[in-house]
């Protein structure tokens, strides 16, 4: 976190005709997030890191992106990024996703940080719905955009009752819903955003990252920050924290897999692949490709060089 604040106040007293301008402190850098907001965000982030998995309320500011479009992730990134930072922004794993492009330019234009598509060069990675395939290291921070921070939303609507459930670690209704799911469907059908127990205490929503990515949060060397701007909550998983998907002892946690699927561009099987359906019902040109575009591209480059 390398942003600095400089404020100077002119204490000379005007004698004639007080003008409104004289009441105003000289503006700090023009940006989209003022210094008070940044301070508040950093405090909320620190609180979140101290209580892993706890949803810290914060005064979410209106951002130039709509609520639900990454305003929370954007605020976290703006609060922690400075001139020395290198920022990667992805959406569904793709640096070129139009919303990722918009967010990235907002960050670099207003903070002076540089941008990259390579994980190895980044210090901060803001992401929607994926963790990059490359392993992140201790000096890197992952900022995740969260649409719905409340993992218990499916079993309880009342806000006060939700607060009580988290406060008392009373997750019994979540367990009942997992039981019912397994009984009704034969498998646990939760797809993305799988609920996880963090540090043995709080259950979190892992945002809609696929199950493929969930095991990579467990005892990760990097810091993960989760920002929900619309819902005004921040939570965190500090490095080396236990993150366990909620499941029964005899019901293994399942990641997405389609036997035989491989990326048609780089031939990978051990990555999260997305499907391109056949061009029509009769065609057999259906295929799979990596969702992490930068990772896939690098593999292709490395393969062509060898």
């Amino acid at each position, binding site marked *: 976190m390398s942003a600095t604040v400089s404020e100077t106040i002119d204490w000379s*007293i005007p004698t004639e005709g*007080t003008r409104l301008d004289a*009441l*105003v*402190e000289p503006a700090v850098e023009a*940006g*989209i997030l*003022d210094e008070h907001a940044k301070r*508040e965000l950093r405090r909320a982030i620190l609180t979140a890191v101290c209580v892993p998995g706890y949803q810290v*309320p914060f005064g979410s500011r*209106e*951002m130039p992106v*709509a*609520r*639900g*479009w990454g*305003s929370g992730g954007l605020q976290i990134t703006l609060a922690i990024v400075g001139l020395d930072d290198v920022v990667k922004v992805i*959406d*569904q794993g793709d640096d*070129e*996703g*139009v*919303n990722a*492009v918009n967010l990235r*330019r907002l960050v670099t234009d207003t903070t002076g940080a540089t941008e990259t598509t390579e994980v190895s060069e980044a210090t901060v990675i803001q992401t*929607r*719905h994926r963790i990059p395939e490359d392993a992140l290291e201790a000096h890197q921070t992952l900022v995740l955009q969260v*649409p719905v921070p*409340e993992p*218990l*939303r*499916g*079993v309880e609507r009342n*806000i*006060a*009752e939700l*607060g*009580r459930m988290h406060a008392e670690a009373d997750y019994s209704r979540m367990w009942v*819903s997992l039981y*019912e*799911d397994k009984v009704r*469907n*034969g*498998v646990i*059908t*939760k*797809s*993305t955003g799988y*609920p996880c127990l963090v540090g043995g205490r709080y259950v979190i929503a892992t945002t*809609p990252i*696929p199950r493929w990515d969930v095991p990579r949060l467990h005892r990760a060397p990097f810091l993960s920050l989760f920002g929900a701007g619309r819902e*005004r909550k921040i939570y965190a998983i500090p490095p080396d924290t236990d993150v366990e998907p909620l499941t029964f002892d005899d019901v293994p946690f399942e990641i*997405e*897999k*389609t036997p035989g699927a491989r990326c048609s561009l780089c031939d990978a099987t051990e990555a999260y*692949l*997305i*499907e391109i359906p056949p061009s029509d019902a009769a065609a057999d040109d259906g295929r799979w490709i990596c*969702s992490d*575009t930068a990772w896939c591209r690098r593999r292709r480059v490395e393969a062509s060089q060898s």
Partner: protein
Amino acid sequence: MGYAAARGGLDAISAAEALVRDARDLANSPWLELDQLIDRQRLAVDRVMGEGGLWDPRLAARALQQSEGDTIEASHLLRSYRATMPRFAYSHPVDMDDARVLRRIVPAFRNPPGPQLLGRTTDYTGRLLDRTDDALARERAEKRSIDWAPAEQAVTTSNPTDAGTVASTGPTKAHLGDRRHRRLLDVLRDMDLMVDRRRTDDPEPADITRAATRPPAPRSAVLATMARAETGALVNLWYRNILGPDGYIHEVTLGEVRHAEIPVTVTHPHTGGPVDIGGVRVTEVEAIEDLDGADEDRTRFDAGYGLCFGHNEKKAIAMANLDIACHRDGGGVGGASDLEQSILMTTDGLDASGFLEHLKLPHYVTFRSMIDRKMAMRSARTAEHPVFDTTTATDAPVPVDPREGDCA
């Protein structure tokens, strides 16, 4: 080619932005002036200031111009602009009786203290589309404009015993008899007909722009949320509670409906004295609620309050009714009502529309994962231990969905 897989995402976005900008700015018709919006689309400008939470008619007009008339988009522009501005003072509390009243009606009494001032309103005008040829209408307006003095006049009062209110320079506090006319609530208090909920402590009002507000919340937080709420959201929340399957509020009787200008004063940081920095225009409503509950004082009334920027009566009236309904219904878990939760969490225009429209963002990672689960379910069904089929139960309601919790 997929929408997210478009290479050169920045080029695509820039092209989209150019399309919007050029189609709006380079159209054949004359440039849309901010003054035109302020003078002739004042209610849209007022609404945007109210939902943006920022008083500045020119900025609001600019936002409306930029957003091509989308009021929620315009209020977003105002709010994100506001978020960048330093905050250098808080105003002194405003005594609403210091207002310069432009319009004031009291439905609860025929002859309240002070006038019934219809003011600038179309409430009593027939909703007939004026089919006059546009060029002719313009010609006539131009002829009349030479004689017209632009101020908030054309005052008529429905109370003929009130002296000197016709053809004057405007209804000011001074004009209305040089004294403050008592509000209806004051009259009812004198008749000992009002429950007294006035506080003797002076709690800090909640600042919803600086701290997240969740139920149970103080009344100031609920009022502040409603003051910035989207107009339609409040109107329909009110209507749904009157007529919908699970609502429980009933209609109030209105005590005061006012459209007024109020002065705004701050403390000078050096001299310590009050400084008048201008004024804003608001709509203010006091609503009277008939108490009929078993645990209530049924020999008295209670009151609800509504206040918002600009001239927006439907919003302020909905606000006042929801305010008192929230108070009466404080019986949920933790003392907060479902209504309070609905107000605090579902009435903000930016939150609601932003979240709704985010569905347009790519969701293919999530969707692939859902397909995977469907395949897994099918394998499970054909495996050794088939699942009991519970679909034969009649009238079985949809059970709790364990998949809820991520976005759609």
